[in-house]
């Protein structure tokens, strides 16, 4: 007992297990809410309105909007998971349980990120199943599909950690989601093609990083893309590295977690 060398495997597994059990305890908020919201989006935008809209580049509108709906839920689940886990841990000081335990800061970050990715993927699977009922699902490249889902979940899990560390109140905790993530998701080509936009709005959309995530996911599902996928790949790798290094640095210096 108590001999930990190298990676604290049992500790890391426990961290992930604790986080998963925590979200299962509040499953209406963590699972039912995003699944119901996704169902409504698919029904209204895909089924009701979609039946009146022509195909886009040979893709039925329902299948065109589905990747965006899926990705929006994946990224918001990952973000909410780490933001609330870190913030509440600081708020009720239960994060001290981890600080006094034999964890390296990398293990703590891994614990948060892994559990966020699992939660996001569970939501993703749920939405895929719902999408199947509406005939909205098409997967042309399964490995790429999984890669996009996991990468985007990692990016937003890291963003969530940053917000969880930064926020000093519940109000601040929701700021980024309301003013940045949600608007960027909706304006990232989730419901429309670039062809529908004038030059100015198109330029704004191309400058939106979430556009590349949705577009990449759309390529992995229906095989249609409007952007250079390489730009998306570089963006994803760049963001994971930059955010990962920043989060590691903040944990290393104990910013807002160690006095």
């Amino acid at each position: 007992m108590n001999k930990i060398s190298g990676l604290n495997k049992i500790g890391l597994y426990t961290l992930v297990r604790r986080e998963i059990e925590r979200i299962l305890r509040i499953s209406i908020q963590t699972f039912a809410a995003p699944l119901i919201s996704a169902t409504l989006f698919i029904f209204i935008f895909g089924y009701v309105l979609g039946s009146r809209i022509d195909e886009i580049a040979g893709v039925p509108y329902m299948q065109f909007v589905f990747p965006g709906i899926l990705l929006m839920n994946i990224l918001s689940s990952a973000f909410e998971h780490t933001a609330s886990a870190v913030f509440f841990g600081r708020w009720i000081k239960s994060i001290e349980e981890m600080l006094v335990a034999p964890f390296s800061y990398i293990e703590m970050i891994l614990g948060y990120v892994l559990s966020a990715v699992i939660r996001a993927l569970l939501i993703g699977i749920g939405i895929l199943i719902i999408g199947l009922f509406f005939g909205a699902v098409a997967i042309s490249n399964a490995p790429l599909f999984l890669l996009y889902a996991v990468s985007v979940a990692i990016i937003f899990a890291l963003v969530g950690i940053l917000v969880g560390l930064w926020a000093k109140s519940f109000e601040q905790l929701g700021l980024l989601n309301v003013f940045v993530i949600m608007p960027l998701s909706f304006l990232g080509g989730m419901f429309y093609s670039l062809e529908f936009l004038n030059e100015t709005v198109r330029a704004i959309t191309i400058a939106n990083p979430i556009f590349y995530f949705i577009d990449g996911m759309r390529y992995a599902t229906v095989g249609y893309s409007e952007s250079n996928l390489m730009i998306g790949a570089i963006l994803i790798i760049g963001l994971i590295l930059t955010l990962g290094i920043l989060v590691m640095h903040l944990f290393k210096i104990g910013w807002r977690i160690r006095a």
Partner: protein
Amino acid sequence: MAEKALEIKDLRKVYDTGTVAVDGVSLSVDKGEFFGFLGPNGAGKTTTIHCITGVARITSGTITVSGIDVVDDYRKARTKVGIAPQEFNIDIFGKVGKLLDYVGGYYGMTKPEREKRIDELLLQFDMMKYKDTAFQHLSGGYKRRVMLVRALVHNPDILILDEPTAGVDVELRRDLWKYLQKLNKAGRTIILTSHYLEEVELLCDRIAIINKGKIVEEGSKDYFTRDGKSLEDHYLEIAKNGKGYE
């Protein structure tokens, strides 16, 4: 020479706000000792404990537990220490058994090890019936017990108790005293902070008093209770003589 359970040398902790919470504290605790760490509110007790356990960063100085540096070899050092803090820094919605199981896992204990140890501790603390109860639904006394059990799950060499009997009724306090004495007799080093001076006098072999971040008096229990006076009398006397007290 007795083996050292804890050794603090020239510890200094300055918060980002510029507040000097601990200012050159040096003290050592022998293995198997029951050590009392006293001082008024804001004196630097909890900050010192936070530096030992890793909740606070050390500005300068060194701390070793069982000869292991708490910064250089933090992973090993943390397995040696169990802390029951003043505040309930726990997921209050979690069930007692689960919360303890997680802590055991953090310390690398396998599932069978955790199950055995947790059941053993819950029985000892008469808490088995609350294993599936959420922490928030426990009474204040039982919450304190959970904090103590949590500190013991990984079987640490040193147990640090920061106000463990605050808000606990007399009966439970006496039960806890008995249990702590038993633990200490079994060889565990215990460091206790408390505002109940009779508790410290009863339990501790040696005592240090800290104020304004500095150790103002340190000695054996006999030293503090010489001339037939109680620890409380002596504590107040030190206060009156202005040894760093306000």
